């Protein structure tokens, strides 16, 4: 290492090792998540506007399909089946447009400022993913309140709620990182919005959010099983319904979400620096 004595003396930023490195990572993640929290605290109107869409789905769509009994949902009412699906959908719809923030920050000079800081790229990207979960968690609160208001029986035990938080954080991180990858590739708002629109509906309909995989046409099933949204919905059904209502065990759902999220973060950590070139 070609470090001169003078730079050793003057260098103001400590260089973390071992447990310090872990602490450093937490500090840096805290900076990015704190930034997002402060932005939302200054202007929370967005969070309230986001409540409209899940309300429409639960009240209108859920109301209609509850009365006609066409979708087989086992021992649950259709609204019970639908509630985790709509929560997952809200998480997806918010997270999938998260990358627009990267594009805006690229058009200004904000991204370069982050990238010249000594923060490891994977930490910057992972922390952005975690920031997105603030919105996801506020959606969870809204959907739970709506569903309770509609008389849907949900599992509100502390263990279930803790699991819900973990699941929402993973789901938000997954789709917001995917969104940032798209942003890093297309770089302009117009193209980004186009691709975002293009992606949301197939992800939504080729999932088990509003109907079970068992009633899908055979050709669609592999897509549903390869769709991360399916595992988010499934985890939520395991956690939110009075008895675990998922197709797969919870650990399997969370394992898939975790693995996909990590893969996406590592990919975006490589792509993100391009945003400053």
């Amino acid at each position, binding site marked *: *290492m*070609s*470090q*001169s004595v*003078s*730079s050793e003396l*003057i*260098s*103001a*930023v*400590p*260089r*973390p090792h071992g447990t310090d490195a872990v602490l*450093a990572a937490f*500090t*840096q993640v*805290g*900076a*990015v998540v*704190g*930034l997002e929290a*402060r*932005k939302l605290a*200054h*202007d929370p109107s967005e969070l309230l506007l986001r409540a409209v869409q899940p309300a429409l789905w639960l009240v209108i769509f859920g109301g209609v399909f509850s009365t006609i009994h066409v979708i087989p949902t086992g021992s649950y009412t259709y609204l019970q089946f639908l509630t985790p699906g709509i929560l997952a959908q809200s998480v997806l719809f918010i997270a999938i447009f998260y990358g627009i923030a990267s594009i805006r920050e690229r*058009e*200004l*000079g*904000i991204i*370069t*400022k*982050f*990238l*010249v*800081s*000594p*923060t*490891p790229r994977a930490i910057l990207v992972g922390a952005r993913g975690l920031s997105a979960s603030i919105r996801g968690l506020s959606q969870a609160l809204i959907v739970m309140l709506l569903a309770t208001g509609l008389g849907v029986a949900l599992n509100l035990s502390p263990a279930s709620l803790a699991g819900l938080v973990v699941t929402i954080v993973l789901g938000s991180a997954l789709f917001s990182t995917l969104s940032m990858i798209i942003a890093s590739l297309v770089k302009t708002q117009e193209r980004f919005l186009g691709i975002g629109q293009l992606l949301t509906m197939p992800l939504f309909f080729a999932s088990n959010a509003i109907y079970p995989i068992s009633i899908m046409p055979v050709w669609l099933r592999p897509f549903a099983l390869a769709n991360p949204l399916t595992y988010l919905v499934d985890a939520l059904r395991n956690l939110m319904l009075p008895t675990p209502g998922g197709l797969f065990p919870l650990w399997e759902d969370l394992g898939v979400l975790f693995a996909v999220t990590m893969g996406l973060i590592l990919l975006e950590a490589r792509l993100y*620096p391009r945003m*400053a*070139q």
Partner: protein
Amino acid sequence: MQPSSAPPVVVTQDLTRRFGQLTAVHPLRVSVQPGEIFGLIGPNGAGKTTTIKMLTTLLPPTAGTASVAGFDIVREPTEVRRNIGYVPQLISADAQITGYENLWVFARLYLIPPAERERRIRSALEFMGLSGVADELVKNYSGGMIRRLEIAQALMHRPRVLFMDEPTVGLDPIAREAVWEQIVRLRREYGTSVVLTTHYMEEADHLCERVGVLHRGRLVASGSPAELKAGLEQADASLEDVFVHYAGEEMELGGGYREAGRLRRVAVRLE
């Protein structure tokens, strides 16, 4: 210029960048002494920003390398990042949060020890004359205040070298002079070396001890503004004259649609 026995804070070794067929920066050799304010001057498109992006580790060089604050930009980018500050040409402060919060985020990203964070933030605000507006949203700041906040952001971790890309573009003359004054004070009080780019010759003349003249990605001259002007056989030569002499053509500003759009966006946002 000060005589220095200490090693230069920036040394480029045939630093080169190509974008496809276009060579944005031809093999570049410059060095910057500790405590020096060094200016890269030239019109838009001369390769100034590309050079700064390579030196700040944002853009990998196609060939060659550079040492910044004693570290190699290609092999030790993280060490370089720890030791530099950067004020990009475009707006880099977040408008949706307060000035204090902007500094809070970077104090943590730069791992300033928790016990010192608050003090560093307060002193950076004070140094830049922003203490009174620390808790206001940045979207209500004037252009000059935003620039000073961005400099404060880049300074909290006491960088050895501060890179500034067109630090006063879009500012009115009063705000411009205020920024100049801060840069000079910064060097005086902390001994920070400054590398800045500018296409305002007046700025380079006023602020820089040495300048490098870039033209189409090549360094065509370097030296103190006085030396460069004296080198011309022309009474009362200006730095514009120096540029015309070495480039063999008028300094044409503009840089095309994209560049014009960027500059105007900065100017509008800074109003």
